[in-house]
Protein backbone atom coordinates (compact mmCIF):
# COMPACT_ATOMS: atom_id res chain seq x y z
CA UNK A 1 0.00 0.00 0.00
CA UNK A 2 1.22 3.48 -0.61
CA UNK A 3 0.41 7.10 -0.08
CA UNK A 4 1.53 10.42 -1.44
CA UNK A 5 0.34 13.98 -1.16
CA UNK A 6 -2.31 15.02 -3.64
CA UNK A 7 0.09 17.47 -5.23
CA UNK A 8 2.59 14.66 -5.74
CA UNK A 9 -0.11 12.39 -7.08
CA UNK A 10 -1.08 14.82 -9.79
CA UNK A 11 2.47 14.73 -11.02
CA UNK A 12 3.19 11.07 -10.45
CA UNK A 13 -0.16 9.43 -10.95
CA UNK A 14 -0.23 5.71 -11.35
CA UNK A 15 2.43 3.11 -10.71
CA UNK A 16 1.76 0.01 -8.68
CA UNK A 17 -2.04 0.07 -8.80
CA UNK A 18 -3.57 -3.30 -9.58
CA UNK A 19 -7.02 -4.43 -10.63
CA UNK A 20 -7.96 -5.20 -7.05
CA UNK A 21 -6.91 -1.76 -5.85
CA UNK A 22 -8.72 1.50 -5.34
CA UNK A 23 -6.93 4.82 -5.42
CA UNK A 24 -8.53 7.46 -3.22
CA UNK A 25 -7.66 10.83 -1.76
CA UNK A 26 -7.97 11.11 2.00
CA UNK A 27 -8.25 14.39 3.85
CA UNK A 28 -7.52 14.75 7.55
CA UNK A 29 -8.92 17.66 9.55
CA UNK A 30 -5.50 18.54 10.98
CA UNK A 31 -3.80 19.27 7.65
CA UNK A 32 -4.78 21.26 4.60
CA UNK A 33 -3.59 18.84 1.92
CA UNK A 34 -5.10 15.50 1.02
CA UNK A 35 -3.01 12.41 0.43
CA UNK A 36 -3.52 9.73 -2.17
CA UNK A 37 -3.71 6.13 -0.97
CA UNK A 38 -3.85 2.94 -2.97
CA UNK A 39 -5.53 0.08 -1.16
CA UNK A 40 -6.74 -3.39 -1.94
CA UNK A 41 -10.49 -3.03 -2.23
CA UNK A 42 -10.95 -5.97 0.13
CA UNK A 43 -9.09 -4.18 2.93
CA UNK A 44 -11.42 -3.23 5.77
CA UNK A 45 -12.36 0.39 6.23
CA UNK A 46 -10.89 0.29 9.74
CA UNK A 47 -7.53 -1.01 8.54
CA UNK A 48 -7.39 1.55 5.75
CA UNK A 49 -8.37 4.34 8.12
CA UNK A 50 -5.72 3.27 10.61
CA UNK A 51 -3.07 3.34 7.89
CA UNK A 52 -4.20 6.80 6.82
CA UNK A 53 -4.32 8.01 10.43
CA UNK A 54 -0.77 6.86 11.02
CA UNK A 55 0.36 8.57 7.82
CA UNK A 56 -1.25 11.81 8.99
CA UNK A 57 0.43 11.56 12.39
CA UNK A 58 -2.45 10.42 14.59
CA UNK A 59 -1.19 8.35 17.52
CA UNK A 60 -4.44 7.41 19.21
CA UNK A 61 -8.12 7.07 18.53
CA UNK A 62 -10.60 5.00 16.56
CA UNK A 63 -10.41 6.34 13.02
CA UNK A 64 -12.73 5.62 10.17
CA UNK A 65 -13.23 7.02 6.70
CA UNK A 66 -16.22 9.15 5.80
CA UNK A 67 -17.67 9.50 2.32
CA UNK A 68 -20.09 12.34 1.61
CA UNK A 69 -20.20 13.11 5.35
CA UNK A 70 -21.27 9.57 6.24
CA UNK A 71 -18.92 7.59 8.46
CA UNK A 72 -18.20 4.20 6.93
CA UNK A 73 -18.48 0.99 8.91
CA UNK A 74 -14.97 0.10 10.06
CA UNK A 75 -15.71 -3.62 9.78
CA UNK A 76 -16.72 -3.55 6.13
CA UNK A 77 -14.34 -4.03 3.25
CA UNK A 78 -13.75 -0.94 1.16
CA UNK A 79 -15.64 -2.43 -1.77
CA UNK A 80 -18.62 -3.31 0.43
CA UNK A 81 -18.60 0.23 1.82
CA UNK A 82 -18.91 1.50 -1.76
CA UNK A 83 -15.47 3.10 -1.84
CA UNK A 84 -14.64 3.67 -5.47
CA UNK A 85 -11.59 4.63 -7.46
CA UNK A 86 -11.14 8.40 -7.34
CA UNK A 87 -13.22 8.94 -4.20
CA UNK A 88 -12.36 11.74 -1.81
CA UNK A 89 -12.68 10.52 1.76
CA UNK A 90 -12.33 12.16 5.15
CA UNK A 91 -10.62 10.78 8.18
CA UNK A 92 -12.64 11.10 11.37
CA UNK A 93 -12.47 9.60 14.83
CA UNK A 94 -15.44 7.47 15.79
CA UNK A 95 -14.69 6.63 19.39
CA UNK A 96 -17.73 6.88 21.61
CA UNK A 97 -18.75 9.67 23.87
CA UNK A 98 -19.50 9.36 27.54
Amino acid at each position, binding site marked *: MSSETKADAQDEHGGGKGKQDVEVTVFAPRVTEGRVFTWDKHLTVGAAAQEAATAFGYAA*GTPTLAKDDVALDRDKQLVAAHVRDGDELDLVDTGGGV
Partner: protein
Amino acid sequence: MMLLSEDTVRAYVAEELPAAKAWAQRRGRQLSFDEEALSLTLPLYGPRASDNGDPEAYCLRGTFDDYRAVPPTWWFIHPDSEADIGPAAYPASPSPHPRGSGLFLASGPTGAVICAHFNRLAYAEEQGPHGDWGATTNWLNTPPSNYTRAETIGDMLARISLEVDESQGRMAPLP
Protein backbone atom coordinates in the same frame (compact mmCIF):
# COMPACT_ATOMS: atom_id res chain seq x y z
CA MET B 1 -5.31 32.33 36.56
CA MET B 2 -3.87 32.61 33.08
CA LEU B 3 -1.84 29.54 32.10
CA LEU B 4 -0.44 30.74 28.79
CA SER B 5 0.34 34.13 27.35
CA GLU B 6 -2.05 35.45 24.73
CA ASP B 7 0.74 35.38 22.16
CA THR B 8 1.34 31.69 22.82
CA VAL B 9 -2.35 30.88 22.49
CA ARG B 10 -2.61 32.88 19.28
CA ALA B 11 0.37 31.00 17.87
CA TYR B 12 -1.23 27.63 18.61
CA VAL B 13 -4.53 28.69 17.10
CA ALA B 14 -2.85 30.22 14.06
CA GLU B 15 -1.03 26.96 13.45
CA GLU B 16 -4.22 24.88 13.52
CA LEU B 17 -6.77 27.22 12.01
CA PRO B 18 -5.84 26.82 8.32
CA ALA B 19 -6.56 23.09 8.42
CA ALA B 20 -9.82 23.70 10.30
CA LYS B 21 -10.86 26.24 7.68
CA ALA B 22 -9.92 23.85 4.88
CA TRP B 23 -12.02 21.14 6.52
CA ALA B 24 -15.00 23.52 6.76
CA GLN B 25 -14.55 24.72 3.19
CA ARG B 26 -14.64 21.17 1.86
CA ARG B 27 -18.09 20.90 3.42
CA GLY B 28 -19.33 24.28 2.31
CA ARG B 29 -19.48 25.47 5.92
CA GLN B 30 -18.84 29.11 6.77
CA LEU B 31 -16.37 28.94 9.61
CA SER B 32 -15.80 32.38 11.08
CA PHE B 33 -13.09 33.32 13.52
CA ASP B 34 -13.01 36.46 15.64
CA GLU B 35 -9.31 37.23 15.95
CA GLU B 36 -9.79 39.74 18.74
CA ALA B 37 -11.96 37.51 20.91
CA LEU B 38 -10.26 34.24 19.88
CA SER B 39 -13.71 32.86 19.20
CA LEU B 40 -14.81 30.46 16.47
CA THR B 41 -18.34 30.09 15.12
CA LEU B 42 -19.45 27.29 12.81
CA PRO B 43 -22.96 26.67 11.47
CA LEU B 44 -23.80 22.97 11.25
CA TYR B 45 -26.84 21.13 9.94
CA GLY B 46 -28.46 17.97 11.24
CA PRO B 47 -31.02 15.65 9.67
CA ARG B 48 -34.43 17.07 8.87
CA ALA B 49 -36.90 16.89 11.74
CA SER B 50 -39.60 15.81 9.25
CA ASP B 51 -39.69 14.55 5.69
CA ASN B 52 -40.72 17.97 4.38
CA GLY B 53 -38.68 20.10 6.73
CA ASP B 54 -35.42 21.93 6.26
CA PRO B 55 -32.24 20.50 7.79
CA GLU B 56 -32.02 21.32 11.51
CA ALA B 57 -29.71 24.31 11.97
CA TYR B 58 -27.15 24.44 14.78
CA CYS B 59 -24.36 26.82 15.61
CA LEU B 60 -21.19 25.74 17.36
CA ARG B 61 -19.04 28.20 19.25
CA GLY B 62 -15.54 27.69 20.59
CA THR B 63 -13.22 29.89 22.64
CA PHE B 64 -9.55 29.30 23.16
CA ASP B 65 -8.12 31.09 26.17
CA ASP B 66 -5.16 29.09 27.53
CA TYR B 67 -5.31 26.64 24.60
CA ARG B 68 -3.37 24.19 24.43
CA ALA B 69 -2.59 24.03 28.13
CA VAL B 70 -6.28 23.21 28.46
CA PRO B 71 -8.84 22.25 25.82
CA PRO B 72 -11.07 24.79 24.11
CA THR B 73 -14.53 25.59 25.41
CA TRP B 74 -17.16 24.29 22.99
CA TRP B 75 -20.91 24.83 23.20
CA PHE B 76 -23.92 25.32 20.96
CA ILE B 77 -25.74 28.64 20.66
CA HIS B 78 -28.97 29.73 19.00
CA PRO B 79 -28.47 29.27 15.24
CA ASP B 80 -29.97 32.68 14.44
CA SER B 81 -29.50 35.00 17.41
CA GLU B 82 -26.30 33.29 18.67
CA ALA B 83 -27.69 33.59 22.21
CA ASP B 84 -26.88 31.04 24.88
CA ILE B 85 -30.10 29.03 25.21
CA GLY B 86 -28.96 25.75 26.78
CA PRO B 87 -30.37 22.41 25.60
CA ALA B 88 -32.49 23.88 22.78
CA ALA B 89 -29.28 24.79 20.97
CA TYR B 90 -28.03 21.19 21.09
CA PRO B 91 -28.64 18.25 18.78
CA ALA B 92 -29.94 15.10 20.45
CA SER B 93 -27.71 12.05 20.12
CA PRO B 94 -29.47 9.07 18.56
CA SER B 95 -30.68 6.29 20.80
CA PRO B 96 -29.36 3.68 20.59
CA HIS B 97 -26.13 5.36 19.56
CA PRO B 98 -24.17 3.68 16.75
CA ARG B 99 -20.99 3.81 18.84
CA GLY B 100 -22.35 3.12 22.30
CA SER B 101 -22.84 6.63 23.59
CA GLY B 102 -23.07 10.09 22.14
CA LEU B 103 -21.25 13.34 22.75
CA PHE B 104 -24.30 15.46 23.57
CA LEU B 105 -25.45 15.06 27.15
CA ALA B 106 -28.17 16.74 29.15
CA SER B 107 -25.84 17.72 31.95
CA GLY B 108 -23.88 20.58 33.44
CA PRO B 109 -24.89 24.04 34.59
CA THR B 110 -26.56 25.02 31.30
CA GLY B 111 -28.42 21.71 31.00
CA ALA B 112 -26.40 20.42 28.04
CA VAL B 113 -22.77 19.76 27.27
CA ILE B 114 -20.55 18.37 24.53
CA CYS B 115 -19.06 15.56 26.55
CA ALA B 116 -15.59 14.89 25.19
CA HIS B 117 -12.06 15.21 26.51
CA PHE B 118 -11.50 18.13 24.12
CA ASN B 119 -14.18 20.30 25.72
CA ARG B 120 -13.33 22.19 28.89
CA LEU B 121 -16.98 22.17 29.92
CA ALA B 122 -16.97 18.37 30.26
CA TYR B 123 -14.63 18.48 33.27
CA ALA B 124 -15.84 18.64 36.86
CA GLU B 125 -13.57 21.60 37.60
CA GLU B 126 -15.69 23.51 35.07
CA GLN B 127 -18.91 22.07 36.55
CA GLY B 128 -19.06 19.35 33.92
CA PRO B 129 -19.90 15.70 34.52
CA HIS B 130 -16.36 14.27 34.51
CA GLY B 131 -14.62 14.25 37.86
CA ASP B 132 -12.90 11.06 36.76
CA TRP B 133 -10.88 12.89 34.08
CA GLY B 134 -8.99 15.00 36.57
CA ALA B 135 -7.83 18.49 35.72
CA THR B 136 -8.47 20.12 32.36
CA THR B 137 -4.70 20.36 31.96
CA ASN B 138 -4.73 16.56 31.66
CA TRP B 139 -6.83 16.67 28.50
CA LEU B 140 -4.22 15.19 26.15
CA ASN B 141 -3.80 12.15 28.43
CA THR B 142 -7.45 11.38 29.00
CA PRO B 143 -9.90 9.66 28.61
CA PRO B 144 -9.24 5.91 28.10
CA SER B 145 -8.59 4.79 24.55
CA ASN B 146 -12.09 3.53 23.77
CA TYR B 147 -13.47 7.07 23.89
CA THR B 148 -13.31 9.52 21.06
CA ARG B 149 -10.13 11.54 20.60
CA ALA B 150 -9.46 14.86 18.92
CA GLU B 151 -6.33 16.89 19.54
CA THR B 152 -6.47 19.73 17.03
CA ILE B 153 -9.19 22.27 16.27
CA GLY B 154 -9.93 20.64 12.92
CA ASP B 155 -10.20 17.18 14.48
CA MET B 156 -12.58 18.53 17.11
CA LEU B 157 -14.81 20.16 14.51
CA ALA B 158 -14.86 16.99 12.43
CA ARG B 159 -15.85 14.86 15.43
CA ILE B 160 -18.59 17.23 16.59
CA SER B 161 -19.86 17.58 13.01
CA LEU B 162 -20.09 13.80 12.63
CA GLU B 163 -22.24 13.68 15.75
CA VAL B 164 -24.49 16.43 14.38
CA ASP B 165 -24.81 14.54 11.09
CA GLU B 166 -26.09 11.53 13.03
CA SER B 167 -28.32 13.45 15.47
CA GLN B 168 -32.05 12.94 15.95
CA GLY B 169 -33.57 16.38 16.23
CA ARG B 170 -32.92 18.93 18.97
CA MET B 171 -32.69 18.33 22.69
CA ALA B 172 -35.53 20.85 23.11
CA PRO B 173 -37.53 23.13 20.81
CA LEU B 174 -35.99 26.48 19.94
CA PRO B 175 -37.42 29.31 22.05
